[in-house]
């Protein structure tokens, strides 16, 4: 093999220059080897386009969400630097000058997303405050020397942006010079003087006499305390000549600052806390913009959504990974579903339907949802749909249109329902819209127990709550351009008006009801219980509904009817396969794989992979003809922490000889024994490579088990 050698473990391969041709375009790989799959090129292009749109949408979203945070931060930086700016001589400022302005940025545990935020922050700061923005990571700064080196080299990089000619000699000098705070401040002096002269031409720095230097410590928790402490102490000494501003990136909680820095050091900082948006809210907005909208035709099924949210909630809290998961589902969808070519905007899809090939028409006919649809049609229409391609295409167009309308309605009603249920006590239908969405995708929501209890709770809502919810729903319907909901909007408006007019009546009612329950005479427990029971009875029988209650009932029934009409699960819609990606298992397999379980299965149940009938056996036991490593593994499971190799090899040999039906007394047995021993050695070293055992010195010829998982 070309990649094995005794002397090195790293091999580089380059294409031969002569043969080098234009590399295969990516679309080529979209084909599944055979050319059977339809419209692969078009599908790939659609994928590309959709993904680009979704990506830019998320980026925009990110930007908007960060905007608030960044603005606050920038304001703080400007304010804190103004003291240095004014060079004022009063005492408070003098004290303040010893303190380094510090912004503590609490970003949450989703560390993978932080990089992006910091990159944006750097850009924002460079555009508004200062060209000197440096960010350091703990891994770059094991000690003070490296810290300063990195700092200086980055600073110089910042300044060479403005004057590229000096780049060469600056870099040379930087390598030579001893890095210290003194050299830093002198560098700062020269640079600011230079820019001062050039001031008129520079609009960017014009608002600052001397721009501050912003140092971002991306992962504050992982810095060594000593480096941080030393740096802060030294920097505060030089603050009057080197205006430094610190930004701490904190993943856990702000207490960490005090844990890392003793009082003497933290008193040198003037800290202000900034909290970024929680990642769960972020997820909600992302979902809102990407999935709960008709802007993107692509949708995911309940299971896929669950897999993605589970990965998010249990593994990383990372929005970026969530979006990546979404990208993968998009790719998988376009890759595996030939009809995904229709998963695009409605007019475009209609155009494409006309160009569909015969095979694609067959594909449509093969869709389960379409077949269900056909079965419901009259018989002559059935025949036409199944035989006439033209007719099929027309029908598909109208079905796709229906699907689109279905989605428009779906999301409106979903939001409306969410308005109602999101504030209920105990959140029977979930607090987040994604939970509600999940339930609605899964089944008919009105069949669920949670829905029934939610309706019960809705029937107990107070007037003002109900009115504010209705108001919100009204706005939602109002903002939508579709006119199917004209009547719905009107109904809500009417309800609102009725509630308003109800105001006075309701008060009287409550006066009356409030006076009722007070006439309890002083009695013993038995009588109390009895009278309470009686009261309950009487209340129930004498219950007459107030006007408000009647109206409330009406509202709830109205909502219920909306839900039942519009929140049908997508599986009921013909052609839903075109836009819904439902292969949750592939997604999970690729994003959240369980390598240990795969290994376990391979070792314990080889039949699962090899599909050889001889290997089929009941659970917990493997046949003796299984691969060597399986047998060795199975045997080793029976041992405790130490394994005697002799015992092991004998047990192994027993099993293997039995499997081969050898007569142990035959003449050739010595050689066979040798071979079996070799096989044992191979199995053991493979298990060692896989990390199940390791050599131990505690007893001769023993190995130690490394796993304590079951059997």
């Amino acid at each position, binding site marked *: 093999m070309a990649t094995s050698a005794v002397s090195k*473990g790293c091999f580089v391969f380059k294409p031969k220059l002569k043969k080098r041709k234009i590399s295969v375009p990516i679309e080529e790989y979209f084909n599944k080897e055979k050319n059977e799959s339809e419209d692969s090129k078009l599908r790939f292009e659609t994928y590309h386009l959709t993904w680009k749109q979704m990506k830019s949408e998320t980026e925009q979203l990110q930007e908007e969400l960060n905007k608030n945070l960044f603005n606050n931060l920038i304001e703080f930086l400007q304010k804190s630097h103004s003291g240095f700016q004014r060079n004022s001589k009063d005492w408070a400022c003098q004290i303040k000058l010893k303190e380094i302005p510090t912004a503590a940025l609490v970003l949450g545990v989703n560390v993978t997303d932080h990089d992006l935020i910091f990159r944006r922050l750097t850009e924002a700061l460079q555009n508004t405050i200062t060209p000197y923005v440096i960010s350091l990571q703990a891994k770059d700064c094991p000690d003070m020397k490296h810290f300063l080196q990195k700092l200086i080299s980055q600073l110089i990089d910042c300044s060479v942006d403005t004057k590229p000619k000096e780049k060469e000699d600056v870099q040379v000098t930087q390598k030579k010079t001893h890095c210290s705070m003194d050299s830093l401040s002198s560098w700062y002096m020269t640079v600011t003087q230079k820019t001062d002269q050039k001031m008129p031409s520079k609009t960017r720095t014009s608002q600052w006499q001397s721009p501050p230097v912003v140092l971002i410590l991306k992962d504050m928790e992982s810095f060594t305390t000593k480096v941080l402490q030393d740096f802060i102490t030294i920097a505060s000494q030089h603050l009057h000549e080197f205006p430094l501003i610190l930004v701490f990136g904190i993943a856990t909680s702000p207490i960490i600052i005090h844990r890392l820095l003793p009082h003497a050091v933290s008193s040198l900082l003037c800290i202000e806390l900034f909290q970024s948006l929680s990642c*769960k809210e972020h997820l909600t907005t992302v979902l809102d913009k990407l999935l709960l909208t008709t802007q993107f035709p692509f949708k995911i099924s309940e299971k896929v959504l669950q897999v993605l949210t589970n990965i998010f909630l249990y593994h990383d809290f990372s929005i970026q990974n969530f979006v990546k998961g979404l990208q993968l589902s998009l790719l998988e969808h376009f890759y595996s579903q030939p009809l995904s070519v229709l998963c695009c905007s409605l007019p475009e899809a209609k155009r494409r339907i006309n160009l569909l090939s015969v095979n694609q028409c067959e594909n449509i006919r093969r869709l389960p949802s379409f077949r269900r649809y056909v079965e419901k049609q009259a018989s002559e229409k059935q025949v036409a749909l199944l035989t006439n391609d033209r007719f099929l295409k027309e029908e598909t167009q109208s079905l796709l249109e229906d699907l689109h309308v279905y989605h428009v309605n779906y999301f409106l009603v979903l939001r409306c329902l969410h308005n109602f249920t999101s504030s209920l006590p105990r959140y029977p239908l979930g607090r987040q819209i994604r939970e509600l969405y999940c339930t609605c995708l899964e089944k008919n929501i009105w069949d669920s127990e949670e829905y029934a209890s939610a309706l019960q709770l809705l029937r107990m809502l107070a007037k003002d709550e109900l009115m504010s919810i209705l108001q919100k729903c009204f706005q939602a319907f109002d903002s939508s351009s579709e006119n199917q909901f004209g009547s719905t909007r009107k109904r809500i408006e009417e309800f609102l008006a009725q509630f308003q007019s109800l105001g006075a009546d309701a008060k009287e009612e409550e006066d009356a009801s409030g006076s009722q329950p007070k006439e309890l005479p002083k009695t013993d427990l038995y009588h109390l219980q009895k009278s309470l029971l009686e009261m309950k009875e009487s209340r129930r029988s004498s219950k007459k509904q107030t006007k408000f209650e009647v109206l409330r009932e009406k509202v709830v029934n109205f909502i219920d009817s909306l839900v039942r009409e519009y929140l049908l699960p997508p599986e009921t819609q013909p052609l839903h396969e075109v836009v819904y990606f439902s292969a949750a298992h592939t997604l999970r397999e690729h994003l959240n794989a369980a390598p240990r379980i795969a290994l*376990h299965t391979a070792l314990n149940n080889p039949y699962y992979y090899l599909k050889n009938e001889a290997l089929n056996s009941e659970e917990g036991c493997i046949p003796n003809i299984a691969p060597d490593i399986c047998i060795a593994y199975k045997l080793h499971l029976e041992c405790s922490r130490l394994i005697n190799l002799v015992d092991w090899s004998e047990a192994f040999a027993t099993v293997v000889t039995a499997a081969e039906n050898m007569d142990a007394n035959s003449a050739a047995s010595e050689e066979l024994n040798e071979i079996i021993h070799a096989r044992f050695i191979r199995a053991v070293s493979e298990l060692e490579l896989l990390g199940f055992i390791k050599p131990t010195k505690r007893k001769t010829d023993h190995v130690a088990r490394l796993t304590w998982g079951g059997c």
Partner: protein
Amino acid sequence: MSKLELKEDKMLEVQFVGDDDVLNHILDREGGTKLKKERAQLLVNPQKIIKKQEYGVEEGDQEVLKDQNYVKVLGQNVQESLKNGTATDGGNKVYSFQNRKYPEKMAKLASELAKTPRKNVSFSLKNDPEIKSISQSSKGHSASDKVQPKNNKNELQSTPPRSLRKRLIVPSSHSDSESEYSASNSEEDEEVAQESEKDTNASVLSQKTQAASRILVPTCRGTPSKRMRREDSSNLVEEYFEAHSSSQVLTSDRTLEKLKRAALDQQTLRNLLSKVSPSFSAELTRLNEQHEKLFHKWMLQLHLGFNIVLYGLGSKRDLLERFRTTMLQDSVHVVINGFFPGISVKSILNSITEEVLDHVGTFRSVLDQLDWIINRFKEVWDHAKQSLYNWLWYETTTYSPYTEETSYENSLLITQSGSLPLSALTHVLRSLTPNARGIFKLLMKHQLENQEDPSYPGLSFQDFYQQCREAFLVNSDLTLRAQMTEFRDHRLIRTKKGPDGVEHLLIPVDSQTLTNFLEEEEEATVTA
């Protein structure tokens, strides 16, 4: 709110209101008792697991995440998946605790395995009556095994099928005098076991099963896993601590040296293995073909900014090599063998800078080098893509042996290349002069005399010289030193400076090999 105020105005009296009534007051307005019950249930357990976790995350301390739910959620819809193992109860099994194991178990299981699947085999080869009869006879053995009370472990081991008996009896002739199984202090262990028997329910159970399995061998097949599942998690925890409480472990004292074929070298191992025809080759090729069908998809995903991890049992080298040769011929690529013992970040980066980017020169540090590479690739790779590893996991279980991978390992049973195997020792010494051989033997004997002393520093050069002179092997300091150089070149000896600055000589070969060698030598001289 207004209602409350009104109440307060009219009466300032404390009333006793039963819990029931409060609940009624809250819930009873319309629904009646039936609703009340439903609500109460609903309040107590929100049924959807997913919702529960939602609360757990958002309300932190109110609801605690339960491991089991977690496993369940992650393990759900695995059934649909064709790959990825039988995760549903695989999860339980893989992540459960280990229960206490007893030394005889392996032998038992071996005998179990050796005979039970015979059924399978005889099914497939029904036309061969002879085999069938063998399997029956072995069953007969096992039946007798069942009845036999197990006093003597040797006896137990000899009762299962003939093949096992033979194998077990042969080595036991070597070790008749010593007990088969011993812990460092077995009495204490017994005590511990008894104590824990009193203490925990779980241990009682395991002890009992152990006792039971002493008599009824076939019960031990498959029982551990079943028992595991039956017990709730608290018992599992106790079992874990029980299993790890005592420091000594009961294992047999037998060593490989008493088996004649102790260790093989790499070459003979390969030769031997090449004689074995791989089993299930048809199935394996089928698996491989399945994986190869994914090559196109991999390329696509690699192009779109994902990275790919392959996992599963079996060597993936061949598969990757095929992927490399079929798909990557037109692009620059680097292969890094992670199992290569000398691999380091530095060497990887060096090969990238020097060979891929044709850079000549050195870097001050690894980080600098990395920065440089990143700068060079900036045009090629999108930075955002590069900073993220979008791992996609692909299961590619191949069952191929890890031939190449393990060959670098200093494996347990394969003689290490660092120390010398017996054959090499003999070979080198044969080529020496008789005097040199004598010198070496002197050293060897001295070392063997001192083998019990763990702090034996080696023979000091002065003493060695003295002894050699007395045996008329050398006549001067210089000749001995010249001889030493030769030994050292063949890596037959190692010199170490002691704390007093005196050179000490050691043979870096284990004592067993040395004894064997001496024995062989003496035989040779006798026959000569």
